[in-house]
């Protein structure tokens, strides 16, 4: 610090420039003060409502705490040992992964198809965009009310449509074979519009010249789709995939609202398991341990994604 200041003073003297009032050190200190003052409101909230809960949650996971706070003592990693032997924990983890696989693929493909069709430039642009994007603006509860009603075995529209084709009625949300699929369909309807918009934005950034050149070379529309459009969309697809997988792993709302994890726990997600152990069984310590297992899953998936996208970026 001193040497830098001395050097600075020397150069200033050499240049014959007199800057007596502000030495570099004081302006640096002032910058520091300003920087922290600007960042402070966010940093305080960040420490209070994000960093502290992360630390405190980990501490809780090492205790036998219940919601009354009574009999709370440090029990080391016993909660984690219990979680790894807990069939229900593994089952909800499995359900979460299954939901992620089932939902991610249509949420990418359907969004892409919708964007490609809308991008053809047909009349009524605002209407198409409104139709496909509007569900994304709905609260999960509204989506769940709509779809529970659609899936109603006697009064629902879906079974009514099935019956006009002579198909038997299905108890969508109460049947172990269909409950998860029914939730996935509602989820695709709800959130595909978001990916659709991201694809639409990316499509409009593909240079027109590429298509003109391809047309000159005699490439047909389908050929152009697969050799120009889809490759140009690759970065968007990778990002949508990354975000979609992470979003699907965090699923809770619509499952809890539509089936409450049933029938027989067949749709219970890991977040719901955290909620239920914490707020229904009142085992806060154990719930925190399950929350950290969930966090570990998120970190592992993120690291895998990072490796894959880094490799894609390199090639």
């Amino acid at each position, binding site marked *: 610090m001193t040497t830098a200041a001395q050097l600075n003073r020397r150069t200033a003297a050499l240049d014959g420039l007199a800057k007596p009032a502000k030495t570099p050190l004081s302006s640096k200190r002032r910058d520091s003060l300003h*920087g922290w003052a600007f960042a402070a*409101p966010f940093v305080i909230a960040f420490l209070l409502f994000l960093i502290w*809960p992360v630390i405190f949650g980990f501490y809780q996971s090492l205790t036998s705490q219940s919601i009354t706070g009574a009999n709370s003592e440090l029990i080391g990693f016993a909660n984690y040992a219990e979680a790894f032997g807990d069939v229900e924990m593994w089952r909800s983890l499995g359900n979460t992964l299954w939901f992620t696989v089932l939902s991610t693929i249509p949420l990418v493909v359907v969004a892409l198809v919708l964007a490609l069709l809308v991008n053809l430039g047909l009349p009524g*642009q605002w209407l198409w965009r409104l139709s496909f994007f509007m569900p994304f603006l709905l609260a*999960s*509860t509204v989506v769940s009310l*709509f779809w529970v009603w659609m899936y109603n075995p006697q009064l629902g529209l879906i079974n009514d449509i099935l019956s006009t084709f002579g198909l038997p009625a299905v108890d969508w949300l109460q049947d172990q074979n269909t409950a998860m699929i029914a939730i996935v369909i509602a989820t695709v309807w709800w959130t595909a519009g978001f990916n659709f918009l991201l694809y639409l934005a990316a499509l409009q950034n593909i240079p*027109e010249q590429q298509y003109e050149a391809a047309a000159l070379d005699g490439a047909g529309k389908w050929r152009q789709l697969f050799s120009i459009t889809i490759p140009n969309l690759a970065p968007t697809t990778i990002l949508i995939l990354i975000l979609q997988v*992470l979003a699907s792993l965090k699923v809770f709302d619509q499952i809890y609202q539509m089936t409450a994890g049933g029938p027989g726990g067949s749709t219970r997600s890991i977040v719901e398991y955290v909620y239920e152990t914490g707020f229904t069984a009142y085992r806060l310590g154990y719930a925190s341990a399950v929350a950290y297992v969930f966090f570990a899953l998120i970190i592992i998936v*993120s690291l895998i994604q990072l490796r894959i996208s880094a490799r894609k970026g390199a090639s």
Partner: protein
Amino acid sequence: MTQTLTPPASSDTPPRIISARPRRKPFRPSSVVAVVILAVLAIIWLLPFAWAFVTSLKSETDAGAVPVTWFPEGGFSFDAYTKVLTEGNIPQWAFNSILTSVVITVITVVISALAGYAFSRIDFTGKKVLFFVIIASIIVPPQMLIVPLFYQMLAFDMIDTYWGIILPQIIAPAMVFILKKFFDQVPIELEEAARVDGASRLRVFTQIVLPLSRPILAAVSIFVFIAAWNNFLWPFIVVNDSSLMTLPVGLQTIESAFGVQYAQNMASAILAALPLIIVFLFFQRQIIKGVATTGFGGQ
């Protein structure tokens, strides 16, 4: 870690923006097929809305009648709406939703913009480490914090309060990142000139930088508002008192309150959906732009 969550749409390249009307291409006969497919898909997408709306206009008897019909014997009426609006808690929930979402949006945008500006323009001790921690924290799923946050709110005596709903929702590390990236692109010359003239940092920020940042501030606000308006899990955890519930949480309780009142349930759902749909109809352009620019970082 940061790489995974770094949105290219909001980084060095200027934000991609969907134009109001995409390039018009010459209309070909083959487009007829596309129109038909698109129309079928749009009808499928609108069907749940339409069905809920028609149900909400039926009498309870017609709504529960088999076989299912689009045209009820008793005709259509707004009875379900009047009933829900006069007897239920929906107006109160709507008020709670508006209040908490607006406060969350204002606080989030203000503190994120201040922090984003500090990271973009000011050299301060510990800046790099702090920024790294904030970016790394994007990976923390809010869902994993419900238990410790609930405990914290218990300690702060904020269970069943507006602040209990609001405070844990004001931290948006991704928005700090997006705003910092935006401020990085703002030409620094104007600020330097003002600084030389003796303007304080805060003045430079409020009078030069913020007016230049209106589009990104609008985008971030829209995104934060939609997320807050629709948040279910946290308000559901922190509020038990029905008069303090937000719309999404309150709606979850109506099925038990009204029993199997299908028309009233659908009327409530439609009423809860309306505000954002109306906002969308008015601000379609801005919302679509907002999602396209902040979307990648906001999830």
